[in-house]
């Protein structure tokens, strides 16, 4: 921090600057304390957690909660299920969304404007509105209690979102190169995967990251469609500790930390891209 207590800095400036940093510190405390507490709880022995006088700083460290979560609560199985669901959702989403966004932004045919609008509408429909009829469908076609049911239903929000986002990216890329490619003898599909996709790679990466996190974080469908504990995903598996154990906070916070870290890393990598994609150019000062 610069030493601003000099003749160049009048008193009023110093007061304002100090107030600013106090406000920022208080705000930051509220934002970051829960994270600190989550990680700290996961690393402290039970004796330090279940006492009337919890100290703000840990007195001793232990990895015992991580061991409990991984061994007794079988975090690994949930992790495997979540990884399978999230990566399958991402792969399918990227294929379907990029082809769809290419079609809507690059090819001319009647009804494509209506299609673009319906993609936005469907993206805006909250998942909690349709889970009962989806449950009936999943049950009727015999997919109840399978991970496939999650992948298929997660597509209903990841595909509209990613298609909408990729349409924004594709629109920002001038079609000149693809037109030149077609004159040189490329087919339309070749212009898509040889010219457009490499140019839109950052958008594709962002779309992939967001569909992965959407699937990784999803709770309601995973709670409703999956009944066997061997097929639970990470969110539902962790939530089930609440009824299973009274002294669950250590393992629960250990599991929460392990579930949050991959997503946080992905978000840091793709920072800002979501806001960009969401507004797709509509943010103008």
């Amino acid at each position, binding site marked *: 921090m610069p030493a601003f207590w000099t003749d160049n800095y009048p008193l009023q400036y110093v007061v304002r600057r100090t107030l600013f940093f106090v406000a920022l510190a208080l705000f930051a405390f509220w934002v970051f304390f829960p994270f600190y*507490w989550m990680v700290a*709880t996961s690393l402290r022995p039970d004796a330090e957690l279940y006492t009337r006088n919890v100290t703000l700083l840990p007195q001793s460290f232990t990895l015992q909660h991580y061991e409990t979560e991984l061994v007794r609560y079988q975090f690994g199985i949930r992790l495997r299920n979540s990884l399978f669901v999230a990566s399958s959702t991402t792969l399918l989403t990227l294929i379907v969304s990029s082809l769809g966004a290419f079609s809507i932004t690059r090819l001319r045919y009647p009804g494509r404007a209506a*299609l673009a609008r319906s993609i*936005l509408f469907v993206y805006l429909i909250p998942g909690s*509105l349709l889970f009962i009829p989806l449950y009936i469908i999943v049950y009727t076609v015999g997919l109840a209690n399978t991970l496939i049911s999650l992948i298929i239903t997660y597509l209903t929000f990841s595909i509209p979102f990613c298609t909408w986002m990729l349409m924004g990216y594709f629109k920002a890329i001038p079609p000149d190169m693809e037109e030149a490619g077609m004159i040189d003898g490329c087919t339309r599909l070749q212009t898509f995967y040889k010219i457009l996709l490499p140019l839109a790679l950052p958008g594709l990466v962002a779309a992939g990251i967001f569909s992965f996190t959407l699937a990784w974080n999803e709770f309601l469908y995973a709670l409703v469609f999956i009944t066997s504990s061997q097929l639970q995903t990470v969110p539902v598996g962790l939530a089930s500790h609440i009824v299973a154990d009274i002294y669950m906070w250590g393992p629960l916070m250990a599991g929460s930390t392990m579930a949050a870290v991959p997503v946080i890393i992905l978000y840091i990598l793709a920072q800002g891209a979501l806001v960009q994609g969401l507004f*797709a150019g509509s943010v103008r000062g």
Partner: protein
Amino acid sequence: MAVEVSLKRPPVSTVSPARRQEAVQGYLLVLPIIVLFVCLIFYPFFSAIWLSMTDKTIGTTGDFVGFANYRWLLRWPDFELMLLNTWTIAFVGVAIKFVVGMAMALLLNVEFRGRMIMRGLFMLPWAVPTFVATLTWRWLYDYQNGVINTIATGTGLSDTRVSFLGNPDFALIAVIILVVWKGFPFFGISYLAGMQGIPREMYEAAEVDGANAWARFFYITLPSLRHVIMITCLLSLIWTSNTFEMVYLLTGGGPSNRTQVFTLMTYKLGIENMRIGEASAVPMMFFPLLAGLIVIVSRYMMKED
């Protein structure tokens, strides 16, 4: 809802083979999206309308009962409370998220060392999965060993420990605090992005004219962000009124339905009690309003075309 995608071919005589081939390719490439929407959005939506007028349970097919489920819901003693809770969480939550998000944007728009790192870090509550945020806050609120209680009693702020989540007066506030903590960064980062686009000269000119900081905020910043503010608030209103896991994992709708919301009620009726008919009717009662919000916000989001 009914979005028609015309699959009819244009009259052959007026369309060149190349154009027709382009159209066929176009439809083929969006076909997976259309199939997905028809099977997993439109069909479930219309089947939900039908289900809401039957007495279907899990295991039975159900008979048509007209509007009996709707009448039953309206007569449910805590129905009004559930409505009130849902919209209180949504409107109060969004209003506070707007204020806190704007505060974040204003603070992080000031020049200081480490500003870019702070911007990234302030996104954390939004980046973290909702279930992680909710479980962590449940532990913070805990009656016996929760750190909020420990700090409050330790500093003399409160004489006794408070059961935040079991207290009928505080449970809804506890939910709203979590909703705000989780959601404000989306507002903040959107406003920051918007502020970047406001030309500096506008502020300099205003300063020359003697406008103080408040005036500059109200006459330059706010009007310039009008469009972003509308989108963030409307989007968040749709999402927040459909909050499920925060309530389910924090309070379970209790104490005595004081935090009951419509998504949770749908879950309890449909999944826990297997009463599909009644459960399907609950979201239907919210749909007209949500559909209105979706139409309005989609207009704003398509405006750039």
